[in-house]
């Protein structure tokens, strides 16, 4: 058969499979991310139906997916929000960082994977999935709740932390010596700060350049700019994802809303491809041995997120029930955690890291939203009694 024909057959089958799985996830009321990961496991090495030719195409699609995910995430925020959440919520944000980076880092050190893997695993357990959490908040009608601003500012803080963390991780993964590593980290930090300052100060010039009444032109300009900056960031060892995130932050207001609406379908398509690709890279045979460990890690980091949410909400003067809800809303993990694990696996970290992260995200992406739904009546009952 012709190469193109096989590529289309395989890629088409994968996408169609994802569509069916997505429909299933909707019916059950969970995030489709864990199902996409499972689909990737089935199609990958050692899976049920290994792909022959489309793996390379899917890997490029996956990279695009990460860029689009981060670009749309950046579009959600405007520069003012970033500054306010940095200044107003620094303490809760730091508590979040320390409490939730700990389980992953400790786990990697106990397994003897070394300091670099520990930094990667710290990121895997730290980042809450803003995508899943935002969906949980709107599905359960929690957006109007008084603890919600606390939850959202923590998410903003986490995403900003990621912009600093990813370049640090990529340089560490590159295995540079301490001195050249420090230099690379320095370059990365300076780049991030420069781009942030440019976004805050000169965002309107970028907007004036990108803005167009024609949606086709706007789409091409935004995606082109994001890819260009992502490539540049990758060259500077800052990680493509962060470059795209910063482009998203630089654009705000009506332009950002238009761009978001245009990018949403594109992002959904390639983000799904990205989760499949991560599953492809993970050997299903490796998942079972680490399943118990992943469950333990998931449990530990659920507790740390509950504590984080309770602490941050209490500081904002929220009652007991709201504190519990804030913690529950922070439990889901998803996109970023897989992005981090993907970087680590791509750079040749410990072979079990990918399997552990996959199992861990499978548990928390599926269970986080469910937990919120199941626990809601109990919280209400407790609040009524109190």
């Amino acid at each position, binding site marked *: 058969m012709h190469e193109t024909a096989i590529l289309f057959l395989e890629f088409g089958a994968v996408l169609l499979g994802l569509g069916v799985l997505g429909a299933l996830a909707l019916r059950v009321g969970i995030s489709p991310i864990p199902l996409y990961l499972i689909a990737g496991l089935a199609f990958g090495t050692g899976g049920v139906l290994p792909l022959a030719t489309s793996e390379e195409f899917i890997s490029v699609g996956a990279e695009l997916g990460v860029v689009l995910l981060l670009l749309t995430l950046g579009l959600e925020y405007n520069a003012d929000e970033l500054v306010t959440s940095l200044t107003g919520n620094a303490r809760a944000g730091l508590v979040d960082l320390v409490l939730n980076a700990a389980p992953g880092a400790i786990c990697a050190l106990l397994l003897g994977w070394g300091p670099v893997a520990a930094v990667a695993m710290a990121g895997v357990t730290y980042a809450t999935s803003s995508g899943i959490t935002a969906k949980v908040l709107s599905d359960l009608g929690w*957006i109007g*709740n008084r603890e919600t601003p606390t939850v959202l500012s923590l998410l*903003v803080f986490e995403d900003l932390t990621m912009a600093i963390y990813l370049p640090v991780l990529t340089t560490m993964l590159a295995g540079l010596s301490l001195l050249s590593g420090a230099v690379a980290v320095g370059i990365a930090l300076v780049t991030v700060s420069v781009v942030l300052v440019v976004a805050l100060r000169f965002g309107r010039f970028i907007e004036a350049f990108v803005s167009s009444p024609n949606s086709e032109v706007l789409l091409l300009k935004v995606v082109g700019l994001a890819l260009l900056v992502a490539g540049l960031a990758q060259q500077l060892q800052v990680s493509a994802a962060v470059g795209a995130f910063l482009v998203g932050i630089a654009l705000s207001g009506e332009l950002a809303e238009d761009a978001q609406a245009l990018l949403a379908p594109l992002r959904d398509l390639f983000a799904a491809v990205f989760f499949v690709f991560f599953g492809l890279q993970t050997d299903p045979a490796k998942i079972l041995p680490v399943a118990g460990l992943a469950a333990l890690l998931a449990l530990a980091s659920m507790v740390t997120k509950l504590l984080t949410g309770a602490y941050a909400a209490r500081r904002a003067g929220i009652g007991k029930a709201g504190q519990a809800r804030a913690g529950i809303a922070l439990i889901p993990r998803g996109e970023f955690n897989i992005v981090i694990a993907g970087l680590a696996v791509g750079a040749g970290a410990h072979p079990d890291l990918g399997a552990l992260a996959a199992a861990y995200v499978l548990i928390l992406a599926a269970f986080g939203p469910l937990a919120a739904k199941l626990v809601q009546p109990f919280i209400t009952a407790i609040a009524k009694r109190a």
Partner: protein
Amino acid sequence: MGQVEVEQTALPGIGLRHDFTTRAGQRVGVVSHRTGRRDLVIYDKDDPDRACQTVKLNDEEADALAELLGAPRIVQRLNQLHQQVEGLVSVQLPIPDGSPYAGRPMGEARVRTRTSASIVAVARGGQVFASPGPEFVFRAGDVVVVVGSEDSTSEVADILAQG
């Protein structure tokens, strides 16, 4: 607004929330989404941080609700106004079926030029159009709120009835 303390909170990535507590101790809020959607939020008495009722409103629905809540206040304020100002009255005048201005824009009646009274609002089927412009088209059955002196407002009544 003076009496009510409205709290404003930013919702990063979503929009803004305004809320306040009524004198009876009920917390009410409005979430303004960037997309233009508005949520009217009623808080739980037992758990004052939780929204127990969320009413999602699109642009038109939010406008309609604001009109309903605001319209009686306009008339009330006008009444207060003319109690404060000697010789100023506000009257509500219907546009009768045979009115020459039914179906014509307000500007053509040249009310202010001819009588020095002002049309401040028009009520139509439960909706109130506050401070309508000269391009506003009257319909038979509209009720026009006019502010002016006793004499000038009765002149307006004649204009609207006979032209």
